């Protein structure tokens, strides 16, 4: 018998491959690497958020030990958090009247609110758009579907930083910006896209939807292809028209995967940085600063790492809670209820 097959025999005899309990060993490497590279920085970030860390003091000291002491940064307790949340004031203005003034950090809470609004609107837009596209490119009557589907996911292959820069050009307020050219060729006036708060917000949404649709579409398409044709036929024989079938057969059948994609994509929306940053730095006048941009502007641009960390941690908490709720509610992990 050759050495190779003797070696093969040896592997065959490895005892734990057969055992159920030891299967944990298969999962641990991934879990470990993930924790090392993702969770450790998070823990580190939490640590920093309680200090006055800045480039000057954070990197002081030598060797690995100084990682654990955060260089020479000093512990400042919850100061970063209180500053982020409660520093300054927030005035609620309605129809030009100042309704009330709250002792909270207006900028932060504005950013916080805009972020959630963005999540809500962009996710709605993304779902509607992707569902529409997916339905079209799986339509019975459409020829060349596969080819179209291949083409349609192309935006996924371009680096986001590039496409976003391009969309910045599309939404130029100039008369010759692409969006404006299209509007004026339709006989509508031009729009100062990035200079008006809600127009800019709309532009973010459109761009976000365009960036995210390929992923959503492929998930939706594969879900649609798994809808048994017989269900549609049964509904047809039952007398259901196109829309009835869509609501009574298609939608319930693809609910699960689409929900999953939705949750993923809403987390992505929550963390959107490049779009507002490249478009107008969360403008006009910081009105549309999404939370990550806010953290970046407040902290990183001025090298206040401690404060930046605090903002990130707050954001992380919210996104974590959001995901947790959704995963639980959407029962995405099997048997999650007893986890």
């Amino acid at each position, binding site marked *: 018998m050759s050495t190779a097959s003797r070696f093969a025999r040896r592997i065959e005899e490895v005892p734990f491959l057969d055992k159920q309990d030891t299967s944990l060993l298969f999962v641990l490497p991934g879990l470990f690497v993930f924790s090392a590279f993702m969770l450790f920085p998070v823990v580190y970030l939490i640590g920093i958020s309680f200090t006055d860390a800045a480039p000057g003091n954070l990197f002081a000291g030598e060797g690995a030990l100084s990682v654990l002491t955060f260089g020479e940064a000093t512990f400042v307790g919850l100061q970063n958090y209180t500053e982020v949340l409660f520093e300054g004031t927030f005035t609620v203005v309605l129809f030009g009247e100042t309704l009330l003034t709250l002792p909270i950090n207006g900028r932060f809470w504005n950013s916080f609110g805009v972020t959630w609004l963005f999540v809500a609107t962009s996710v709605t837009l993304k779902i509607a758009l992707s569902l529409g596209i997916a339905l079209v490119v799986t339509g019975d009557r459409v020829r060349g579907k596969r080819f*179209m589907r291949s083409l349609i996911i192309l935006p996924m292959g371009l680096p986001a930083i*590039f496409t976003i820069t*391009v969309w910045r050009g599309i939404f130029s307020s100039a008369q010759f910006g692409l969006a404006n*050219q299209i509007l004026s060729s339709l006989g509508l006036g031009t729009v100062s896209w990035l200079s008006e708060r809600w127009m800019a917000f709309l532009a973010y949404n459109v761009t976000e939807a365009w960036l995210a649709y390929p992923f959503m579409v492929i998930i939706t398409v594969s879900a649609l292809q798994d809808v048994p044709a017989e269900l549609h036929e049964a509904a047809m024989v039952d007398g259901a028209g196109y829309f009835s079938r869509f609501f009574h057969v298609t939608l319930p059948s693809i609910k*699960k*995967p689409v929900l999953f994609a939705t949750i993923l994509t809403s987390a992505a929306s929550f*963390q959107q940085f490049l779009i507002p940053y490249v478009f107008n730095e969360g403008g006009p006048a910081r009105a549309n600063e999404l939370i990550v941009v806010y953290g970046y502007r407040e902290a990183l641009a001025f090298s206040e790492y401690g404060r930046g960390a605090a903002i990130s941690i707050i954001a992380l908490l919210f996104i974590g809670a959001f995901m947790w709720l959704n995963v639980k509610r959407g029962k995405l992990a099997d048997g999650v209820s007893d986890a």
Partner: protein
Amino acid sequence: MSLLDGIGRKLKEDAQNAAEAPIDAARDARYTVGAIRRGETSPVEPLKTLGATVGALVLVSLLLFPIYWILIAGLSGTGGSIYSSGGLRLFPESPSFVPFLWVVGDLIVPAYDITVNVPLTDLAVVFSTPQLAFLDVSAIQQGTVGRLALGSFELFPGFAVGPVENPSGFKAFFANSLTVAIPTVIIAMALIIPASYALSRREFIFRRKILFVYVLLTQVGGGLGIALLIGLYTVYVQLGINDSKLALSVYYAATAVPFNTWLLKTYMDGIPVSYEEAAVVDGAPPWRVVTEVILPLSAAGLATVFIFTFLTGWTEFVVAQTLLGTDNYTLPVGLYSLVSEYSIPWARFSAFALTFAAPIMLVYLFAQRYIEGGLSFSGMEG
């Protein structure tokens, strides 16, 4: 082995199908028209089909318009810009490949002529294209690219291309990207495959908890990259591994673990257990069961995971830019370094981006059916 074989065959099939698609379509059309002529079928149905197809095409073109727009910018010579005050143009005024040549730079491909003899005549079509274009872009002569000649009779004079000086660093970035993306894929696969198999097929302590955590972290992990950047950067710097491509690969692989493990696990859930049982009864030891049965059957899932992890390494910008030193810049960072403080050289920028994305687009085109199959969550509980 057989896996690669299979993929090769599928690719061939795909290519063949793609090539035959127009023929099929023509046959289809002929049959339909014939049937209508004979009065067997009413023309309403085919017309509806035509309408739906045209509608879908319009939608697709609208969606892809930004990409087309970029392409135009890339083709309109060095001066191209997406901020063009000259109004909406659907075609570049004087198409030029210079930006693309600038991106690609010199390619050391030996010169060759393709001569195709026209049957039954003395004529030969000579494509004298690539020898200069790809050997040395700085020595390109006018009219050497795309020149089409029939004997001494010129059919097409070639594109307007002049010498290209100082081509971009695309190839170096490309090499860097590959050295980041390939280890990323390998490491990620090594972490993901065993884990998804165990999560899908075995029952063990903490299984559900781990699954739950993975689903929870599918997106949080990747997206918060920016927020985590400080922490990550500090740690990397303190450990002295910040300028290591391998360390970056490991990081990418780590971020890819939750989502892809979960994805592959879901896919494997859909593979009937009886295949595995058949193999066991056939006397196969566990590792052979996995390599001979589970992995080949997971091809679509693996392809999806492969592409997703590859893309992570290929397109990620922020972390790469922060961690890597200039010698190790990957393509996205290289692309962004074209942007100077005030202005963007749009033609080159676009050409660079499209060249960068082209391989991925091709892979997509062929892997599409696997990805669609691999992303199928019909086995999802609920």
